[in-house]
């Protein structure tokens, strides 16, 4: 392991996993944490609670389609929703650089409230720290959240079974590219917005189709590729993706060509990957398409018993390739 923390340790890829497994897990060691789902599930006085936390350091804090405040609420709401939980209460912690404009803080807070309203959660406690100029980049936000897990729902990264279908609720890579484009001097003819959205409403409707959803997970940092690798690893199954079915916006695909990125590794903030039994996939897709955050939903692959732990892409020309986890961050490249 490296003797210093590198940026790649925070990118959600292999080094992040290594950090968690080698530094945090052995020390904090307990059976709730050791499950490594996006949220903890705790049972207390007969009530099943889901609990999660997430920190937000996006640069720039305002981007097409959202801002750090909206992101902070969506991120935690979605982590809860990925367990089928009903998100209820959030905390909000702010770390702010001295000199940060009050006007912008107001905008961020207002955007958090709007997102809370949409997703039906309340921010019920909070904290603020201000640090000297240069100690943080403008503003960082942490949110934690609690939700209630309904009866009969058992969703986990370890439940994917051969034969299951993999569904995604729309275009891949919008968030990462909206943020990256701003940094890289790319402009879009028709603006690409972050897909940042609270997904608990969509998930609720999906659970209305069947409670027997095996896996839900939001492919944020590290993208679809990394998340599917996690699922394949946790469930001990293989996953096959069909290149031609992947929903990718023309503009995102083009920006990826220019920067040398692979859209499968670009971050999303309003996407859910669902692994569902094959006989429910058709109805699930139909239902998802009716939700405003699911109009472009598509079945993109299936779970297989071959190559356990690995994700394989069937390419458009009839070849196959392994899709590994993200290693490090994607950097714009010339070759």
């Amino acid at each position, binding site marked *: 392991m*490296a003797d*210093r923390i590198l940026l790649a340790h925070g990118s959600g890829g292999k080094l992040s996993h290594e950090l968690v497994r080698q530094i945090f897990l052995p020390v904090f060691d307990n059976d709730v944490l050791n499950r490594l789902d996006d949220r903890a599930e705790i049972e207390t006085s007969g009530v099943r609670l889901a609990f999660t936390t997430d920190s937000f350091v996006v640069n720039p804090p305002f981007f097409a389609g959202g801002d750090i405040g909206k992101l902070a609420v969506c991120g935690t709401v979605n982590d809860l929703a990925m367990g089928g939980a009903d998100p209820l209460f959030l905390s909000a912690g702010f770390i702010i650089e001295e000199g940060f404009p009050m006007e912008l803080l107001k905008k961020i807070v207002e955007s958090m409230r709007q997102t809370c309203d949409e997703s039906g959660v309340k921010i019920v406690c909070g904290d603020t720290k201000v640090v000297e100029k240069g100690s943080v980049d403008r503003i960082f936000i942490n949110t934690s959240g609690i939700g209630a897990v309904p009866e009969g729902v058992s969703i986990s990264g370890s439940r994917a079974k051969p034969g299951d279908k993999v569904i995604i609720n729309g275009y891949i890579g919008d968030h990462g590219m909206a943020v990256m484009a701003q940094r890289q001097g790319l402009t879009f003819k028709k603006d690409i917005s972050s897909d940042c959205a609270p997904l608990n409403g969509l998930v609720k409707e999906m659970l209305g189709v069947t409670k027997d959803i095996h896996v839900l997970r939001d492919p944020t940092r590290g993208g679809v590729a990394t998340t599917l690798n996690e699922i394949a690893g946790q469930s001990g199954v293989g996953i096959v993706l069909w290149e031609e079915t992947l929903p990718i916006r023309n503009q995102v695909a083009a920006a990826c060509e220019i920067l040398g990125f692979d859209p499968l590794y670009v971050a999303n903030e309003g996407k859910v990957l669902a692994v569902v039994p094959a006989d429910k996939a058709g109805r699930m897709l139909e239902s998802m398409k009716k939700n405003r955050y699911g109009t472009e939903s598509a079945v993109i692959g299936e779970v297989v018993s071959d190559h356990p732990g690995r994700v394989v892409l069937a*390419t458009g*020309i*009839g070849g*196959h*390739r392994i899709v590994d986890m993200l290693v490090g961050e994607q950097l*714009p490249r010339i*070759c």
Partner: protein
Amino acid sequence: MNMRFLKEYRDGNLAREILGEIKKISLKPAKLMEVCGTHTVSIFRHGIRDILPENINLISGPGCPVCVTPNKHIDEAIELCRRPDVVLTTFGDMMKVPGSGSSLAAEKAEGADIRIVYSTMDAVDIARDNPDREVVFFGIGFETTSPTIAAAVLRAEREGVSNFSIVGAQKLIPEAIRALLENNEVGVNGFILPGHVSALIGIEPYRFIASEFGIPAVIIGFEPVDILQGIHMLVKQIEAGEARTEIQYTRGVPPGGNPHAMKILFSVFEPGDALWRGIGSIPGTGLKLKKEYRRFDAVGRFGIEITGDREHPGCRCGDVLRGVKTPLDCGLYGKACIPENPVGPCMVSVEGTCAAYYKYGMRRSG
């Protein structure tokens, strides 16, 4: 919305048709070297190895500018970025490559001011906007990239940006191919020549491959339909016992290349010797600043002198770059040397052969 000249060359039906043609005519064993790392990546990304008949064997060559950059130049860049007055600018590709003892990513974590740029012009802009700092550009690349470095030097001169300089580690391709052939280690039956280097230099510099060494060579584009059509052209020659140098990628490569860009390149640089990782010094394959532009040379300007540069003893990157060994023949590959902890540059660069092998699933069995 248009992605012309891209999408139509990824058409699965066309690709399958051409593949069928290849299968029909290909009988002899054919060892084809893709000189260029971008081909290596494209071949893996689209799963092309997977669908070719078994008698066609693709091997990777020395065409990843990151991989062939020896530790000496990486150490120079590291030495420079440690100076408090220096902003080091680089293409993203070089960040994670380990030098003798460190990498640019590690130096950045230690506090060095290293900025990733997409274009050499961005580096000149940074110099112009920071007149109290010294902005150094880490110049790697082949004939495709080097004219952009020359254009940046010319612009810095024109606009009087005096705090801009470069670490020059660029290389020239055709003579490196000659060196490979003269070494006579690999036994290649055909060359997949790099489309974008050729967009600049044209076809003439490669003629010797067919005329002197009797080996077919085709300049090929990077989309799956291009690659398959190019392989089809190579196989046709091989089966007929012919050897010609041809262009498949005609939409991007006029026979004469881009003489204007080459003129710009050679107004700033002149050919010199270059050290290639794994191959050694090859006369005439490097680029050094001409006398009148020598002041843009960062290594000279700051009096950088690298002595104890060393390569990792077990690393087989050199052999891999010459096509003599595959990553699977290296004792470190997949064990001590993995993408998250690379020993050699071929495991770092996105288009490094080892990284491509690893990422796209070529694991040692057992």
